């Protein structure tokens, strides 16, 4: 369309982003004591050689326990806003490519039309070597609603779909790895 401005191109966060972006307190989305089930998600990030990625930053966006986003764009007035839950988080990987976030389990939110989406967390993923962010979602493997989720249901290859599922392991901690290339490559989204 004519008359539109061209959006600014993305450029990599580079290896020194911690200077501007690393706020360790933002890896705990429960720091203001919101309502909901506390969960921990941890994992690692791997490159195409299977080597850990020590310079990635993961940003998260999710609904509150009732399934409402803390955003003026969310007009689901039948669901409460939790003033103690912003729903945004950020964590950088450590030298071993490991990350850990504490949050609450999000409630289900509507999709397009009459679809209901299974509980999920939106992810924007940045790293040295990525000229712009990658997008993906974290779903929960133990969630029955996954079966009818429009995104998951649209992925035919089960081995690809599984890369979007966080799995509960020892101590109830959810495990979710980001694999940038190869057999277990994470499914990234074109948004």
């Amino acid at each position, binding site marked *: 369309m004519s008359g*539109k*401005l*061209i*959006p*600014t*191109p*993305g*450029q*990599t*966060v*580079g*290896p*020194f*982003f911690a*200077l*501007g*972006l690393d706020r360790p307190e933002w890896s705990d989305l429960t720091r203001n004591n919101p309502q909901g089930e506390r969960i921990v998600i941890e994992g690692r990030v791997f490159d*195409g050689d299977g080597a850990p*990625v020590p*310079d990635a930053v993961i*940003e998260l*966006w999710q*609904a509150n326990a009732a399934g409402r*986003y*803390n*955003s*003026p*764009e*969310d*007009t*689901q*007035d039948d669901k409460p806003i939790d003033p103690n839950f912003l*729903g*945004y988080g950020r964590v950088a990987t450590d030298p071993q490519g490991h990350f850990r976030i504490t949050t609450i389990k999000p409630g289900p*939110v*509507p*999709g*397009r039309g*009459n679809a209901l*989406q299974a509980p*999920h967390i*939106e992810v*924007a993923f*940045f*790293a*040295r*070597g*990525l*000229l*712009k962010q990658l997008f993906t979602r974290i779903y929960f493997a133990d969630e029955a609603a996954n079966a009818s989720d429009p*995104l998951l249901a*649209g992925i035919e290859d089960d081995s690809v779909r599984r890369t979007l599922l966080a799995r509960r392991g020892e101590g109830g901690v959810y495990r979710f790895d980001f694999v*940038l*290339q190869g057999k277990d*490559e994470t*499914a*990234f*989204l*074109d*948004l």
Partner: protein
Amino acid sequence: MAKTPAAYARHREGTQPPYLYPDYASTVKRAPTRPLIPFEHTLSEITGPTFSSGWAGPAATDLTKQHKSEPLGERIIVTGCILDEDGRPVPDTLVELWQCNAAGRYHHPVDQHDAPLDPNFTGAGQAVTDAEGRYRFVTIKPGAYPWRNSPNAWRPAHLHFGVFGGGFVTRLVTQMYFPGDPLLQYDPIYQSTADAAARERLIAAYVPELSEPEWALGYAFDMVLRGREATPFEAAP
């Protein structure tokens, strides 16, 4: 059930860098190899975090006043608007800035470039845009520095910026360059965007009126975020 708000528009071909760009060597082992899965925006993509204007105070917007003394280097003012594709300002959004010092060295343990650290410069700031989408930083001009992408490779002087915008998909992390920098033509990160007009968005303009006499040079740098897809007009009654 509430209606889904209008989705954000897709980028036009060539106006963003690709994931795989071998001239920038680090992309080779990090760019995804599978095609991305297309997905129509839902409430999850269209909503995004909001940040109160109280978040960033004056100390966060003036990088030359964060220590006992002033940092070394050429003092600059960098100001501009955050806009969407339709030219509408994006108010109350967080802008994060980080950069190296005047000698080309980051205040970061991984940066081992043989250039001095400046005890009076950290190189990080934050601002929240005003009602007109405007932000303003005072800082010093960063130096160029070598990197190991290829033999004798040098990054042009740049500021790193992160901006949120209204939705999770409007998030932008980018770099601002300086006009006339001879290193731009050799820099694969700058060159990675194919569309020349899009690439030029990354270069600030020197604006004499923004300079403050006897004190600092003024640069203008607007950042443009994705706008909404056209929404259908409501039918007339």
